[in-house]
């Protein structure tokens, strides 16, 4: 049968038309993962039972595969009468899975702030809330920008998992073409190359951002 480059080229527009779905899923999942991850990390810092439960939840999520989380949500939620679209379930799965990793990013970002900063804030009699908003958060943002960008790339590379739940992302489109034409090689190779190009492009952007932030130095 052989690999038909002309047919591969003809797959490009169909697969590329789903790039919006892929980027949207990745962006929303990254936002969801950051939100849940931040809450996990805050709960862990409070300590006590909430802290221990949160720490265990983070470890549990990180010890289990993302594919199983997607299956879990996809099959368990309807069992309790919660019916959501497969894309929503997919975004929830990715958000939950990556929140375990982003919690560690927040932890490292906060730990890297010198102790003198919150101490100085207290010496100036700032409230706890103001300390977090005006002293901790801005410095944390600079520390987490680059790792957050790297995890965005990881999440982007995990979006094709949603094709397993029949979400029409780029891999899903590739499989649509494959099942219509009985040719698997060409559409899959095209989808793979587009994902590779996208991942390399965003990684490069993150690296440049990291260099600029490092060049900014500490004030």
């Amino acid at each position: 049968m052989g690999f038909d480059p002309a047919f591969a080229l003809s797959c490009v527009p169909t697969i590329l038309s789903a790039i919006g779905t892929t980027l949207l899923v990745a962006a929303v999942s990254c936002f969801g993962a950051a939100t849940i991850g931040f809450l996990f990390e805050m709960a862990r810092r409070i300590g006590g039972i909430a802290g221990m439960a949160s720490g265990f939840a983070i470890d549990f999520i990180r010890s289990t595969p993302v594919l199983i989380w997607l299956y879990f949500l996809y099959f368990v939620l309807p069992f309790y009468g919660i019916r959501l679209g497969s894309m929503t379930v997919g975004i929830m799965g990715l958000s939950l899975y990556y929140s375990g990793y982003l919690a560690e990013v927040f932890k490292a970002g906060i730990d890297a702030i010198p102790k003198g900063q919150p101490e100085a804030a207290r010496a100036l009699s700032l409230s706890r809330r103001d300390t977090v908003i005006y002293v901790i958060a801005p410095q944390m943002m600079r520390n987490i920008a680059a790792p957050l960008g790297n995890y965005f790339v990881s999440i982007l590379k995990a979006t094709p998992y949603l094709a397993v739940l029949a979400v029409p992302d780029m891999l899903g489109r590739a499989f649509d073409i494959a099942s219509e034409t009985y040719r698997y090689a060409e559409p899959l190779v095209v989808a793979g190359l587009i994902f590779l190009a996208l991942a390399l492009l965003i990684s490069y952007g993150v690296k440049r951002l990291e260099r600029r932030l490092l060049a900014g130095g500490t004030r």
Partner: protein
Amino acid sequence: MSLFDIWLGILKGVGTTAAVTAYGLLFAVPFALGFGVAQYLTVGVARLLVTAVIEFWRSSAVIILLFVFYYALPVFGISLSAWTVSAMVLGLNAGGYASQAVRAGLQALPSGQKEAGAALGLSRPAILFLIELPQALVAMSPTFVNTVIQLVKATALVSLVTLSDMTFRAKEIAQVEYNPVAIYTALLLAFFVVCYPIALAGRWLEARIAAPGSRAGGI
């Protein structure tokens, strides 16, 4: 079907999960060492080629790589078993990540180490194998443990290319028994039971080494 039967059914797949992991390590470890060292030693065009190979395996979405190699290789006249394709793709993907730890470990060594070796009249290979690699391997061992965990978790994907691992068994049970909560909880726990002890071992290792600059958090 009782909870016990569900557990037993899923555990039938643990052999496949373990075998794919072990077979995958046969690809991951040599790739990580070979390409990590090569990226450290080479310059110019040679380094560009080494980096391109690493980036291909590291930056591609692993689920797409698996499908591409499973469906596209036969088109090029190469037929490998689902076992070999799975081990190769998952192994080289993990190896790509680990190669960066090898390179970073080598680069992090003070240049005095290499210079002292040269001053003692050791050849370049002798310096690499007797002085640089032993120290770098100790420094990168926690990262390597993380890679093993990522590989174990990635094996859940082989259920999509017909191998009967734990995930495959769980889906089989789900077809005859409508009890998604018990089945998928058991599957999550099965992975947790395998991966969490490895993560704890990695943390212990990291605390023992306590190298400055090593990544915190385990998993």
